[in-house]
């Protein structure tokens, strides 16, 4: 167990990444009760947006200059995609039965993947994403990759900004009001269509930040990256209590820690020696989801639906 601090750090960083993506699921769900299964692909197009910006810059540009530009490009691409999806795919189905937008989301997810696959140059295999060069930072026995510094700074900043936005601004309060009772919110003079667009846009901006963090971590982006990341982030959102933004981050971090610890230690448990290591790492997220759904279906910070009605 001597590498426990390292595993905890890995789990936290991974969890922050899941949390950023989970915000997008939870915000959209909180306002329109839609599981936006295309959100993973919103992350993916953000990654490709950032990559495009990097490739467009003259070679040899320092990453400190390139990174903000990549971030802006990623946010732009993700946000525009999400807003267009809301406008043309989800809004016409606003009053349709819930299954219709859900299926649309799955369709949209496949369509976005295939569009990138077909039209982005050389996207048939993973594209190389820049990493922050240099040796890892050593803090005691914990080594932290330089590329992860971006996430360590960005995730808390994003959360603070979001928490402040939701509770302290006119639009944020309107967003809370809309999620609690859309009809009444309209009668308070709130243009709920705008609020819905805003929820999609904020979720997408967070997705783009996550995409850049993912690219920096793994050194690559590919057209399928949104699938598993999206699925795990969705798990994180449910785990934390879907509809609750702090729950999304808490769920993400719980999931990241669970994954890191299970991968590292589960083979030491009696009878579990076959399940250790990286090959099984994607399983634990979903095992955790099943346990939570059995024990606490509303999620860690969620309220029972009956209380909300």
């Amino acid at each position, binding site marked *: 167990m001597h590498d426990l601090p390292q595993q905890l750090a890995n789990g936290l960083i991974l969890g922050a990444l899941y949390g950023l993506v989970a915000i997008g699921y939870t915000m959209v769900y909180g306002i329109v009760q839609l599981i936006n299964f295309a959100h993973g692909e919103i992350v993916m197009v953000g990654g490709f947006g950032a990559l495009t910006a990097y490739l467009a810059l003259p070679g040899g540009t320092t990453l400190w200059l390139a990174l903000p530009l990549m971030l802006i490009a990623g946010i732009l691409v993700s946000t525009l995609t999400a807003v267009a999806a809301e406008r043309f795919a989800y809004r016409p189905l606003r009053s349709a039965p819930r299954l219709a937008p859900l299926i649309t989301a799955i369709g949209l997810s496949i369509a976005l993947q295939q569009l990138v696959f077909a039209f982005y140059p050389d996207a048939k295999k993973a594209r190389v994403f820049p990493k922050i060069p240099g040796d890892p930072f050593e803090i005691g026995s914990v080594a932290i990759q330089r590329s992860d510094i971006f996430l360590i700074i960005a995730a808390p900043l994003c959360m603070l900004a979001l928490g402040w936005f939701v509770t302290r601004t*006119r639009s944020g309060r309107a967003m809370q009001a809309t999620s609690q009772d859309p009809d009444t919110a*309209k*009668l308070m003079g709130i243009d709920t269509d705008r609020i819905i667009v805003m929820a999609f846009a904020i979720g997408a901006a967070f997705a783009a930040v996550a995409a850049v963090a993912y690219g920096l971590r793994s050194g690559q982006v590919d057209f399928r990256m949104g699938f598993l990341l999206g699925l795990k982030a969705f798990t994180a959102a449910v785990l934390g209590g879907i509809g609750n933004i702090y729950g999304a981050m808490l769920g993400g971090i719980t999931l990241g820690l669970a994954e890191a610890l299970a991968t590292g230690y589960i083979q030491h448990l009696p009878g579990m020696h076959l399940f250790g290591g990286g090959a099984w790492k994607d399983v634990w997220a979903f095992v955790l989801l099943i346990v939570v759904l059995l024990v606490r279906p509303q999620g860690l910070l969620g309220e029972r639906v009956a209380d909300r009605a």
Partner: protein
Amino acid sequence: MTTTDAPAPTPAPAPAPAETLLDVSGVTMRFGGLTAVNNVSLTVGRGEIIGLIGPNGAGKTTFFNCLTGLYVPTEGTVTYQGTVLPPKPHLVTQAGIARTFQNIRLFANMTVLENVQVGRHSRMHQGLLSAVLRGPGYRRSEQESRDRAMELLEFTGLAGKAEHLARNLPYGEQRKLEIARALASDPGLLLLDEPTAGMNPQETRAAEELVFAIRDRGVSVLVIEHDMRFIFNLCDRTAVLVQGQKIVEGDRETVQNDERVITAYLGAPLEGTAPVTETDQ
């Protein structure tokens, strides 16, 4: 923009022929084959308190929903200050009509103050960019909305509970909060949907005082009620809606002595029996 935007506490004009604020003409609302509201016309003048009564299921709330853009009337128009209202609730609020609900619909998980600030939404101007950058425009508008919300909480007597969650307030105070929230949009006309439902006589008296105080702020009021005493104490005119149709409109005597109203509420007297003597709700 409403005319009550500037703090001009003009004393309430006498219920004399006032300038028309709301003009509803020939509103009909059909749901499939069911006609919930049938060709109803009604005007509300500036500074007036108008009552709308009728048995359960008469279409009173449906009528309110037509006024506030929740429903688009099948026929007829709703004109406010000379302009036809768009059928979008948030634009109706922008135009200057606010309402409360029969079954309380507060934002239960927000604080009392936040509820009122949400009501202020359409009168706040806060660009997203200014908010994100926390510019002076943002700070000014936040301060203004807080001050205004606190002032309304003072007015309704809830100032001491500004930080409580709305769902933790007792019933009577939740009703008051709904009114404060509605007033936050600086309406020229306030629609109250059964404001005293579930209140004891004492609270009902307090509600009467509150409605008068609202009128004295220069806001006209259109109120749905079942409590006859409340209505007749309060209203300059009362309209009676029965089965979607307005059968009579006028002052207390006109309404109370109208055969059709009595029939609608108490049923037609059987032939050969003495007329009903109780005059309860």
